[in-house]
């Protein structure tokens, strides 16, 4: 019984993660300029990756596999934003202008 619940839960997480990964990739295509595309990549890096890893952890159960997945999650939460920040900063330093919404709010 418990196993089935865990299984179903992990499938929900995995599929949710897959959907967010797809959405992030679509965003990276649809958004108009480099800086806005970074936000789409963030969706992939946080929610997509996070949900897939949590789904796999539920499949792994209490074992070293789960520990490694947890470690991956931990690494990704540090490396992801650092890489995105580095990209944004390098782009800004090379005078790549962001598209800004000029309309009055």
């Amino acid at each position, binding site marked *: 019984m418990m196993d089935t619940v865990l299984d179903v839960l992990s499938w929900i997480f995995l599929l949710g993660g897959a959907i967010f990964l797809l959405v992030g990739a679509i965003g990276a295509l*649809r958004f108009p300029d480099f800086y806005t595309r970074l936000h789409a990549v963030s*969706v992939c890096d946080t929610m997509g990756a996070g949900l897939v890893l949590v789904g796999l952890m539920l499949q792994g159960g209490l074992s070293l596999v789960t520990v490694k997945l947890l*470690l991956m999650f931990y690494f990704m939460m540090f490396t992801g934003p650092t890489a995105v920040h580095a990209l944004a*900063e390098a782009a800004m330093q090379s005078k790549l202008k962001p598209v800004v*919404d000029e309309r009055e709010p």
Partner: protein
Amino acid sequence: MSKLQHAINLGLFLFALWVLLSGHYTPLMLLFGVLSTLFVVFLATRADLIDRETQPILIKLSVLFYWVWLGREIIKSNIDVTRRILSPGLPISPTVFTVRAGQKTELGRVTYANSITLVPGTVTMDVDKDVFTVHALTREAAADLKRGEMNRRVCNVEIVF
């Protein structure tokens, strides 16, 4: 804390990591674990990296609370960004603005900067001492950040570091 204490902490953390990664608990493998840990701590000392920031023990309770709060924020803004990506009109209003970080230490500031980037909808573009240049996907996300709740929360956990 003294430098020695920091080195010992790092060593203990690395050894725990080794044990968790390894999965082979013969005396030989554990001995290798000890040797590897000592070697890495030696290199880190030589690289002059041993100080408070190398301490990956951010497992204090209040930090954990911060992470839970941050997780909730991330989920909320993810759903928001997802809605915007999928809606046909692409309702975004990108803005660039600056915020002031109230943290005293480098580690605190970096935590704040990375938290901003981690939440989809806002990306830290530049860190100049305590002034961050931030790019936001929408005006709402920008207004949300300017309210300064995240800044306050990072300041609160910073004391624990």
